[in-house]
């Protein structure tokens, strides 16, 4: 008994010491990078990255945190969060961090990451309420060199296509008063978009919110302004990012966080209006109303009725044509959601009504035949989660007024260190994700059915494996696919910590499906894409970390073959608590676009990018973070891409008349 306790304490000390040695910011960067490489976080996940940073600075008290609080820690799975609550309910409060290692499914790595965002409070009278007024303001300017074609006048009589400057601006301000009041403001202008001109009063995208979280027992939250709504498993209503079938993950259980303030710079994935959440510990009730704008491509039929054929996702407003479509479509959303929780069971049900000022049209290409038409869509949905000691069941069904339906059902098994997930899904052909974001393969899931299986285990000491396979089929056509298609995606990841300084990882991705034949677009051909990525990370000294990575890509489509390769070296050096420098050099060589690769690169906070590499070239990135004092931090970032196989980059208005491209960013943050 004593020996076991001693071992636990030693391990705990190691875990805690390791957590304390690495500053929270480094852990956030590391987590964000890992999640980006796994596909469980993307470039539009600013809210999630901000959430992590906020949590690192205002760590949760594990003895007071609710299940909802724990769901904001992205490194925790739903099951891990439930284990923490169950343990507390059963055995009382945590007395030390070492108890976390005794929870099922918690490895050293999991505890280390958790302790960056939470703590075990040993004090009897600690009041976790923030006692200060805080401001977190961040501003960024970035630019690409040389100037793209769109910034140059074609001749003396024809002005440049882009109406704005090549600078991209971003401003984000978050203010809070205690734990109850929060306000946020975001202003963003993409490169080429006009600022304070051409009908744009400030920047192209502006968002703001005020959120009130009272200590009232009945009213939980009120938000006015930009917000997100996420419920169930995404079949009924879900704004924002969620991992799809390409991600390397095990459980696909979603943590529907309900209504939350939205500070993302995504110009499409948000709601704007008012939302409120109320209820008791067991019953919660949300209501929301939203009015947003969109850019729609339109056409006029023979009866001179204006229809929307598609809704823009990028919402660029750089040219006169793009500006003409700006906000030409208004969308309204009203809805409600109720949830009941009792012990291990959670049941939810909701409904929302979506209305567009422009009628949607399903005319056009055959694959759009079952897209919704009209101006209104009503969605009714119901979901549940049930947790047992060794398994969790969860699922959702949804029905849309266009006579469409969707269903998914999944189970997670926790088998003494081995996690296994199995899930099935089926979407009717008419099901359309206007305000939904279910777990699916295709960008529009209508007609898709699929089976998902995943396994996570630690078969050897310091080794973890994660594997998943997703089998899918579509009963209807998809974009650029002339027939119903089927296939599967498989992911495999193994990581091994050689010692405290060195770790290696291998990631294998294999996609097997069907696409239009390269030579005859009316025929279907088997398509296979495989990639093998290896990486080795070493903490050479306490201040210097090196990461070497390489990936091989193979692509087949019918008789067409393509391959690619890249190798990179990344170094991160922490001079002291005030200065950190990160640099990465990548050499890539792919036959063409089909064997392209995506890599992560060191980037400033809230601006993660995953550049696509295809062709032959070299990419270099360097970033310096200067922490002036506890209030001010400055980032200087530069990236240089040199293509060895071309003398022009991109095409159209974004074409650069050069074989190389340079990007620069300056970002400053002020915190109070």
């Amino acid at each position: 008994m004593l020996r076991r306790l001693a071992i636990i304490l030693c391990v705990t000390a190691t875990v805690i010491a390791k957590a304390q040695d690495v500053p929270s910011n480094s852990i956030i960067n590391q987590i964000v990078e890992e999640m980006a490489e796994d596909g469980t976080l993307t470039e539009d996940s600013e809210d999630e990255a901000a959430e992590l940073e906020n949590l690192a600075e205002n760590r949760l008290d594990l003895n007071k945190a609710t299940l909802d609080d724990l769901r904001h820690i992205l490194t925790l799975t739903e099951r891990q969060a439930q284990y923490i609550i169950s343990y507390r309910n059963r055995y009382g409060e945590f007395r030390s961090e070492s108890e976390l290692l005794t929870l099922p499914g918690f490895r050293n790595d999991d505890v280390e990451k958790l302790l960056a965002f939470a703590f075990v409070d040993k004090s009897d009278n600690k009041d976790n309420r923030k006692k200060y007024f805080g401001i977190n303001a961040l501003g960024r300017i970035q630019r690409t060199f040389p100037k793209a074609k769109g910034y140059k006048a074609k001749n003396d009589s024809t002005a440049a296509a882009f109406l704005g400057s090549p600078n991209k601006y971003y401003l984000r301000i978050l203010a809070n008063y205690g734990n109850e009041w929060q306000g946020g403001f975001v202003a963003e202008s993409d490169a080429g978009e006009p600022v304070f001109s051409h009908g744009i009063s400030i920047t192209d995208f502006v968002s703001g919110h005020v959120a009130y979280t009272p200590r009232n027992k009945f009213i939980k939250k009120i938000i006015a302004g930009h917000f997100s709504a996420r419920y169930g498993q995404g079949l009924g209503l879900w704004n924002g990012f969620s991992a799809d079938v390409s991600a390397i993950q095990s459980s696909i259980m979603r943590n529907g966080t309900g209504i939350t303030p939205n500070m993302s710079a995504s110009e499409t994935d948000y709601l704007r209006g008012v939302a409120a959440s109320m209820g008791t510990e067991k019953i919660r009730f949300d209501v929301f109303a939203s009015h947003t704008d969109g850019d729609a491509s339109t056409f006029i039929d023979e009866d001179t009725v204006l229809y929307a054929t598609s809704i823009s996702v990028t919402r660029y407003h750089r040219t006169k044509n793009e500006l003409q479509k700006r906000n030409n479509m208004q969308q309204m959303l009203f809805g409600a959601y109720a949830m009941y929780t009792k012990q291990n069971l959670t049941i939810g049900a909701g409904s929302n009504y979506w209305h567009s000022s422009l009628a949607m049209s399903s005319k056009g290409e055959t694959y759009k035949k079952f897209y919704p038409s009209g101006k209104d869509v009503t969605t009714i949905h119901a979901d549940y989660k049930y947790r047992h000691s060794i398994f969790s069941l969860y699922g959702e069904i949804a029905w849309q007024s266009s006579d469409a339906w969707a269903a998914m059902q999944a189970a997670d098994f926790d088998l003494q260190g081995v996690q296994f997930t199995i899930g099935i899904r089926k979407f009717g052909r008419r099901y359309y994700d206007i305000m939904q974001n279910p777990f699916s393969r295709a960008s529009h899931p209508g007609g898709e059915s699929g089976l998902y299986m995943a396994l996570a285990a630690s078969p050897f000491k310091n080794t973890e494996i994660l594997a998943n396979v997703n089998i899918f089929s579509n009963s209807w056509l998809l974009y650029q696919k002339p027939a119903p298609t089927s296939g599967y995606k498989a992911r495999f990841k193994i990581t091994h910590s050689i010692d405290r300084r060195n770790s290696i990882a291998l990631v294998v991705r294999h996609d097997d499906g069907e696409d239009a034949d390269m030579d005859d677009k009316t025929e279907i051909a088997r398509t296979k894409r495989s990639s093998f990525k290896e990486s080795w990370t070493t903490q050479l000294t306490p201040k210097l970390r090196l990461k070497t990575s390489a990936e091989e890509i193979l692509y087949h489509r019918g008789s067409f073959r393509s391959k690619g390769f890249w190798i990179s070296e990344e170094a991160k050096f922490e001079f002291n608590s005030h200065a950190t420098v990160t640099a990465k050099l990548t050499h890539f060589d792919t036959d063409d676009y089909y064997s392209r690769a995506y890599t992560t690169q060191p980037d400033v906070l809230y601006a993660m990018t995953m550049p696509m590499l295809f062709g032959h070239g070299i990419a270099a990135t360097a970033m310096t973070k200067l922490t002036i004092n506890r209030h001010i931090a400055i980032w200087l970032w530069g990236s240089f891409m040199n293509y060895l196989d071309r003398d022009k980059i991109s095409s159209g208005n974004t074409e650069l008349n050069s074989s190389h491209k340079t990007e620069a960013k300056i970002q400053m943050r002020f915190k109070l």
Partner: protein
Amino acid sequence: MKKIVFTGLFLVSLYADAQDIIVQSGESMGIAGMLTVSQVDGISSIDPSAIAEIEGLAAVEVSHARPFGMSELRQTSAKVAGQTKFANVLVAFARCGDEDSHYTEIGGGLSRKFGIWSMGLEYHALIHTMSDNRRYSSSFSRFGFRLRPRKEWLLSVAIHSIEQREISYGFTSREIEAIAMAGIKWRPNQLCSVMLEAEKRWNDDAIGKVAVAIYPIEGLDVSAGFSSNGSSFSAGAGYIWQGIALHVGIMRHEKLGVSSGVTLSYNLNKSK
């Protein structure tokens, strides 16, 4: 033969059409068609070294399968295995096909354990009978070895039709395709086991298989698996009581449809 005790079931393995003369039991069907490893250590594996792990009394198995739901491809097989002083012995009988065309296979093998590893060899006679009662025969062998470095780990390798003989039909002949298989099974605890297998046929692409079996209560196993051959998903279940085991499995090929199989076995040693 100092110690040969036969008990229980007959395992009848039917061989499918010439394209695939590997028999799939109900157990195998439930774990993505794995041939070298299985949910419950027994004799359903086609790895000749598998029977080396039988200790004491012997086991008998009978199985029936319907690949892709087609009666023309139905398989029935029987296996009997027992322990002798020198080695464990297997006798197998199988039939695959229907009255218009079917294969009959009779074979036997020996397997012996050497500490943590086992080795086995089988030899089978194959007869192809046509509707007009014409018969064409050939034979093939199988070799297998397995390693059990620790109780929870099993590595199994088998090679089918090493010599790649042919069945001659006079004016033409058909090759008995060589197949190499390698499987790994990891059983970390009493609740689950994870299995992986790679299969490479001489004239075809490699196939990867993965499966998980869960044992929620004693005697019961539930399995699910995936095979890259036809993006196939499989599911199965089995129950063992007093040495009698019943396993059923289904596997769905994305284009060819659903295959099903059932296996009934009896292991006298486990009944005690």
